[in-house]
């Protein structure tokens, strides 16, 4: 996996994790405007990062929720999440 793809994917995971935790917080605090503001900001950043990723490396989401900008069906492109080596020195 090329280092740039890995770096971008890592950025997506970071943003997405923030969104997950904020989402759970908002489930029980739906009127919390500060949390909502942060959530909106982070999910916008996440959306942008995903768009950038998909443009370069193919769809992140299946069933047409993601974009497939390439000429082949990039959804099947490896590696799949459980195959990626996230060790800092790894490939």
């Amino acid at each position, binding site marked *: 996996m090329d280092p740039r793809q890995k770096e971008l994917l890592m950025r997506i995971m*970071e*943003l997405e*994790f923030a969104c997950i*935790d904020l989402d759970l917080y908002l489930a*029980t605090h739906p*009127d919390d405007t500060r949390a909502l503001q*942060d959530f909106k900001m982070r999910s916008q950043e996440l959306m942008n990062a995903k768009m950038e990723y998909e443009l370069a490396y193919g769809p992140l989401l299946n069933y047409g929720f993601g974009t497939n900008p390439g000429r082949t069906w990039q959804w099947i492109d490896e590696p799949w999440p459980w195959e990626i080596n996230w060790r800092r020195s790894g490939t």
Partner: protein
Amino acid sequence: MRRYPPRGDKPFRYPRAQEENESPRERRRLFESEEPKREPAPSKGSPDSGYAMPEKNASERVDSETAGQVSNEPESKELEWREPERPDNGEKTITGMGVESTGLAGTIELATAFVPWQMYGRTLDLREALRLGTLFPELTRTPPRYKKPGTRGEE
């Protein structure tokens, strides 16, 4: 009408029920004193049934003020649920860090689990949040290095 938790952008004040005229429990108590007390139905079921009022308590509840109305009530053959008598000490609040934290239900009740509400504060740097497993520093803990049941993460 939907009711949601207190707003995070306003100074926090639990319980929310106080923002209205009276707490649900207060309303219930007022209501109970207004309504005629009903004679508990004669227990057809097991005398140990939780739904049958013990006779001693039943006679205590029928006070002179409402006794006349009670006799007019048709006797029900069904077992009836009555609110148990309880001492009026349910309105205590827990305060910590200057914040009333009694939960939305308004009071701390016996035999009821209660987890304090989280308030929105500082959030962690995104990379650090992913590493630690939460965006909220107040929820982070250190895993115990050795087996120490019940310590909830403190070493």
